[in-house]
């Protein structure tokens, strides 16, 4: 299943609705919904907040593939080339005063997914995130 939407903050509910629609129509396991919701929010908001161009927001393509015991969500966007996986993991042991929140979203995605990959292909950033069923 796939959908296209503008990469802006106000479109996050639409992105979530796409995910929920996939879960309903394919009767996917309930316990896998939370990690995918979290991954989608984190990567979609990265594009919405940092991935636009002066002329407007990026376009975002979402696709969920369910095959061979694997569930994969890909998020592509036509914003400037940017590899979110290059963001360093924040120091998770830092004391309260020094804790940074930047980079935490991508860290959560890595932790919640079995695998995450990035490529820049045909003028699009493509982020691929998957879990096994």
């Amino acid at each position, binding site marked *: 299943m796939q959908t296209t939407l503008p990469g802006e*903050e106000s479109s*996050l*509910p639409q992105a979530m609705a796409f995910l929920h629609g996939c879960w309903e129509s394919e009767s996917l396991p309930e316990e896998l919904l*939370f990690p995918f*919701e*979290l991954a989608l*929010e*984190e990567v979609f*908001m990265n594009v919405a907040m940092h991935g636009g161009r002066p002329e407007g927001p990026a376009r975002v393509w979402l696709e969920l593939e369910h095959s061979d015991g694997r569930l994969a969500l890909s998020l592509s966007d036509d914003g400037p080339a940017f590899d979110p996986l290059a963001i360093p993991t924040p120091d*998770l*042991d830092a*004391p*309260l*005063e020094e*804790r940074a*929140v930047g980079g*935490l*979203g991508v*860290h*959560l995605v890595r*932790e*919640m997914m079995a695998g995450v990959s990035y490529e820049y292909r045909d003028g699009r950033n493509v982020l691929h995130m998957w879990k096994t069923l």
Partner: protein
Amino acid sequence: METTRENTDSAVVLAPAGRLDFAAAAAFQDIIEKTIADAASAKLAVVIDCSGLDYLSSAGLRSFLIGARSAQTAGVKLKVCALQKSVAEVFDVSGFSRILPPLSDRAAALAAL
């Protein structure tokens, strides 16, 4: 997301219910900061009872982090408790469990003050 607030003898208890996502985070942060300010003047602690919290993203974690810093600055004790499984996992993998060690339930949080 809805957040209810009630006072005990020793603490102001906040109970957020629903999804603490990007859209809800700013409002929740305001509630935490206001509650900490009120608790400081009333010489009370703050307990965040997360039993109704179904979802937490990095935007929501930011609210907890800023709340924990405000509490430290104001000299207010802050405890979180009753995390659902998925929310607890977010706390663990982000290292927040070390900053704000979650307690099992509201009674345990009040007893730990």
